[in-house]
């Protein structure tokens, strides 16, 4: 049985924040769950995907976050408790349905999880998604700990039903990827069978209906604000005239800091957990007893601006500060020492800074950047494209996935990336605006996520570029989740469809389509050359399973390669391919037989044919 289905209330389990959230959803009786994978949210859906195999929970990996939210909206409007999970940038994709779903509302609890990523450990930006609550009028809950993440997930479903609105559960990486002991609660029964009652004058958002629905949303928002006034998730702690307002993980740093500084008796904390709508009464009461106030929140001055506005309205002149050149930054994530130092500065307390050693005499430490894996087929594809485009002035728009790492030397393939699906549409723009040769790259999962619409645009507008679809048979970057092109038998699941990328591309009307096996270097280069020569939109689909995924499926059974004495040390292998299985022994290139997966790409480009299979030595 899946550990998160354990039916023993009170038992303590060491859980990752994401597991605690999944457990909270299970305890809340969630019956329907949708997502598109994205770090730091991925483990929530992974657990629910596994649980769906041994329970009547419906779970799906949707093609993108907009689709996930639309599927979820229908389920929740059929009276089924529904959970929709994504990373922060996924919310941008889902923003369109979110804005109007807030008008239409829900019949059963719908919780939308956004996992924000301050410091961008694995993301392209560090946007603060609390603004989506403000923009849509939907309430936001922000847990401060792993234990609270479980509790708040349950509360979010209840709040959603109380208001008839979706609720945003907003976490950050330090909640998602922290672990703590969590006391299990009772699992409520799942109601999996929904029904839909037709009510077009409340559910079909045409202008005449929406004018009324916006009124309803504002009434709900006011109701949510009064709930926030008494919510147990908004509390005041401690006594004193120094005030600190905080939310999320910042609360932990504040708690630890005031103990370390010994100012518990001088400081009052307003911890907001239901942060939107922010309760004006609660804030006003808090401010009234304060001589000065510091707002401690990662990201944008979301609470700070609200608290200042409330103070103005209540004609309170108490100094309020937060983001400031001398205090907190809007950049990156906070840490305990930094929060302690700012608190000490703001309230004029002595702080003994930790004795960080002088590291000026440490030799330069070589970086350990992430790298495409040994034998990764993307490396082979990039090499083929590079060779095919040699001598041309080329722009390479790329996209979000493992293959983004191809921008690093020695491959250096990747000139522009902003978001999922952008490689296709920006290829349209670059080719039109510059007239240069453009070759865009997109992964298979990303293609289904939002590459399709760009490709339709390209065919319709008769753009001129080559799109290379890097099809490694999985969503590799986030941990090998399935997508519409994947054989679900790999997951021991039946009853799924499977969509051929080639058939889709041809159906859209792309005239020049070729499918390559990137480990066959010569043939691949020829195919790419032909695609580049084609006037108009051409597509090359490069198919080879992700090596890590193939290994986990036990579909990797190959022989390692070695460098023989024929090697004249040209180092084309290292300088052009840069596979991490290579290393230098003295001045000689060697191949680590434990890392090599036997893709044989290096063997094909070696000018001396010096790279050959290891005899009687199986790798992988």
């Amino acid at each position, binding site marked *: 049985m899946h550990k998160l289905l354990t039916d023993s209330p009170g038992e303590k389990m060491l859980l990752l924040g994401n597991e605690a959230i999944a457990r909270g959803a299970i305890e809340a009786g969630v019956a329907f769950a949708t997502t598109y994978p994205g770090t730091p949210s991925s483990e929530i859906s992974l657990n629910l995907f596994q649980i769906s195999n041994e329970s009547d929970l419906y779970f799906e990996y949707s093609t993108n976050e907009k689709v996930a939210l639309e599927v979820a909206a229908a389920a929740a409007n059929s009276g089924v408790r529904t959970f929709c999970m994504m990373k922060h940038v996924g919310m941008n994709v889902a923003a369109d349905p979110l804005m109007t779903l807030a008008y239409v509302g829900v019949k059963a609890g719908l919780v939308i999880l956004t996992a924000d990523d301050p410091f961008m450990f694995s993301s392209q930006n560090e946007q603060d998604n609390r603004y989506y609550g403000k923009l849509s009028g939907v309430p936001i809950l922000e847990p401060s700990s792993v234990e609270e993440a479980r509790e708040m997930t349950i509360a979010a479903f209840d709040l959603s039903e109380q208001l008839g609105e979706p609720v945003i559960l907003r976490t950050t990486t330090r909640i998602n990827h922290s672990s703590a002991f969590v006391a299990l609660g009772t699992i409520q029964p799942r109601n999996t069978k929904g029904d839909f009652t037709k009510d077009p004058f409340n559910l079909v958002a045409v202008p005449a209906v929406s004018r009324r629905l916006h009124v309803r949303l504002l009434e709900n928002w006011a109701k949510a604000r009064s709930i926030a006034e008494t919510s147990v998730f908004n509390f005041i702690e401690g006594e004193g005239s120094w005030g600190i307002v905080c939310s999320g993980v910042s609360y932990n740093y504040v*708690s630890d800091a005031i103990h370390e500084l010994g100012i518990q008796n001088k400081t009052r904390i307003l911890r907001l957990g239901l942060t939107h709508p922010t309760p004006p009464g609660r804030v006003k009461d808090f401010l009234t007893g304060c001589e000065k106030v510091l707002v401690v929140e990662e990201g944008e001055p979301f609470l700070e601006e609200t608290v200042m506005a409330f103070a103005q309205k209540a004609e309170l002149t108490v100094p309020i500060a937060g983001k400031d050149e001398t205090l907190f930054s809007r950049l990156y994530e906070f*840490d305990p020492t930094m929060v302690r130092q700012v608190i000490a500065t703001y309230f004029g307390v002595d702080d003994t800074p930790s*004795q960080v*050693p002088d590291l000026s005499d440490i030799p330069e430490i*070589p970086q*350990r950047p992430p*790298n495409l894996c040994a034998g990764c087929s993307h490396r082979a594809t990039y090499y083929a494209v590079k060779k095919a485009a040699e001598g041309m002035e080329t722009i390479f728009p790329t996209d979000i996935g493992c293959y983004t790492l191809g921008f690093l030397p020695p491959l250096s393939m990747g000139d522009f990336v902003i978001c999922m699906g952008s490689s296709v549409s920006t290829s349209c723009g670059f080719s039109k605006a510059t007239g240069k040769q453009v070759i865009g790259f997109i992964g298979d999962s990303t293609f289904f996520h939002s590459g399709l619409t760009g490709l339709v645009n390209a065919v319709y507008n008769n753009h001129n570029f080559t799109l290379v679809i890097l099809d490694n048979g999985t969503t590799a970057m986030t941990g090998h989740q399935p997508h519409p092109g994947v054989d679900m038998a790999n997951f021991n699941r039946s009853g799924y469809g499977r969509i051929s990328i080639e058939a889709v591309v041809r159906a859209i009307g792309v005239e020049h389509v070729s499918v390559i096996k990137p480990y066959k270097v010569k043939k691949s280069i020829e195919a790419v050359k032909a695609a580049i020569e084609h006037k108009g939109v051409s597509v090359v689909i490069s198919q080879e399973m992700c090596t890590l995924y193939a290994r986990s499926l036990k579909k990797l059974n190959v022989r390692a390669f070695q460098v023989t004495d024929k090697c004249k040390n040209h180092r084309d292998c290292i300088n052009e391919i840069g596979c991490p299985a290579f290393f230098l022994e003295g001045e000689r290139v060697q191949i680590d037989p434990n890392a090599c997966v036997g893709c044989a790409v290096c063997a094909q480009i070696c000018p001396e044919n010096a790279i050959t299979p290891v005899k009687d030595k199986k790798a992988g």
Partner: protein
Amino acid sequence: MQTKRLIIVAVGGQGNLLASKVLGEAALLCGVPVRMSEIHGMAQRGGVVESSVVFGDAKSTIISDGEADVLVGFEPLETLRALNKCSRETTVITNMTPLPPFTVAIGRGTYPDLNQLQTLIQAKTKQLIAFDAVELAKSAGSVLAVNIVLLGALIKTGILPITKENLQTAIRTKTKKAFVDVNLKAFDLGFQLPGQA
């Protein structure tokens, strides 16, 4: 309860997260509050995995510069890189078998001299326990047990409020059945190393 802060650094695939989990379970058995945080973004693609384990009553799950009581490094270069987490009061335990980053493997960077590395760490911290954990893991029966060898050395220092017995129980219940014996042996080999007791 006095707060103790531990940083573990490793290269993706060395078993850092399992080691943290075993420590966490042992803490539960000892009745010690524990909070952990991990950064493993792109680690599967050869990057660094870092986890913070905070024992005691603190609420934070991450550890600021200079605040670690103990640093455990599974790879010497990564131990050196994490030295900013240490102070004069920190005990450092490190495996000494290098896993050169790819940049070094292909001659685009220099791996620091291991003797110099030890001298530097010794000069800036309270204590350094450095040894070849890979060798010990192999003699326990599997090169994969490097993480558990290091846990043995860590528990031996007595810095953490975790008993040897509870850690052994956590190994029995939380590591794969087929590896329990190897792991218990690996733990013993680490524990037998000279360390502060």
